């Protein structure tokens, strides 16, 4: 719920930076490793938006996969079944490459 509140604070701040335009939709990018369950977040957002100054703001979710980068062959691969080894060359020498995103990616502003 506090993450949902942070999302709405971000939307309000960005809208205020744009002359207080009304926001119809907002895009959210959520990584598989962010610790956020998208459906729970959606529920919390809907609950907070309902009856607020942002009502009827809607959200689009983009879910980002958990990825690692291979230090041996350079491939960026999706981690499946928690397997950290490179899916291209099999090397175990890999590093975190993505999946912990929690970002606001766009606002759809209503024309004045």
């Amino acid at each position, binding site marked *: 719920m506090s993450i949902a509140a942070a999302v709405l604070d971000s939307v309000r701040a960005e809208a205020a930076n744009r002359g207080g335009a009304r926001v119809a939709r907002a895009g959210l990018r959520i990584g598989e*490793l962010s610790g956020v369950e998208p459906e729970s977040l959606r529920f919390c957002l809907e609950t907070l938006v309902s009856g607020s100054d942002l009502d009827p703001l809607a959200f689009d979710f983009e879910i980002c996969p958990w990825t690692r980068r291979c230090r041996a062959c350079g491939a960026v691969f999706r981690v499946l079944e*928690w397997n950290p080894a490179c899916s291209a060359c099999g090397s175990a020498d890999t590093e*975190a490459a993505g999946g*912990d995103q929690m*970002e*606001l*990616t766009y606002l759809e502003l209503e024309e004045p």
Partner: protein
Amino acid sequence: MRVPLERKVLNENDRIAATLRERFQKHGVFCLNLISSPGSGKTSLLERTLEGFEAGRRVAVLTGDIQTDNDARRLAHFGFPVRQITTGGACHLDARMVERALEGWPVEDLEILFLENVGNLVCPTSYDLGEEARAVLLSVTEGEDKPLKYPATFHHADLMVLSKIDLLPYVPFQADVAKENARRVQPGIEILDVSCTTGEGLDRWRAWLDSHL
């Protein structure tokens, strides 16, 4: 009209955390964020840790709970500064709570600051507190698959403390499987076996802390 953005949802928290981190680094304070399920032994580990420190050590604890100051009272017996953060419902600490709790405290004089997070394996993960390292506790009375069930938490941890290892003979917990699971989620994770009841492993834990000073 669509306006593209690249704004982190928790950017306000991250901003405060960056300020705290800068402050800790400037003054050589090793700040450790302790995360685990409720009842994994965070407070017990801190009790044994404080108990083992000489009186002159410059160590302090901020301990977070949804309600009560029981943990702060448990930890205050050892003569080191302890403050309770009562979140009043929030299931995690955030950087602003830490910043407020540190007001008026001689943080600059510390060598170690422990942040005992609220018992929860999900929400604390998302909130940077300005710590230099993050430790997650997993007790042997839990499941070996917790690193797989809560990958975000283990993925962001530098250290896993396998706690209550004195109970291993009495529970079906397979320690090697739990460690393998943690390494699948975070290949670089360090792992320490500890029992706060027998004291086993506490020397290695203290050595790990000292290696960060």
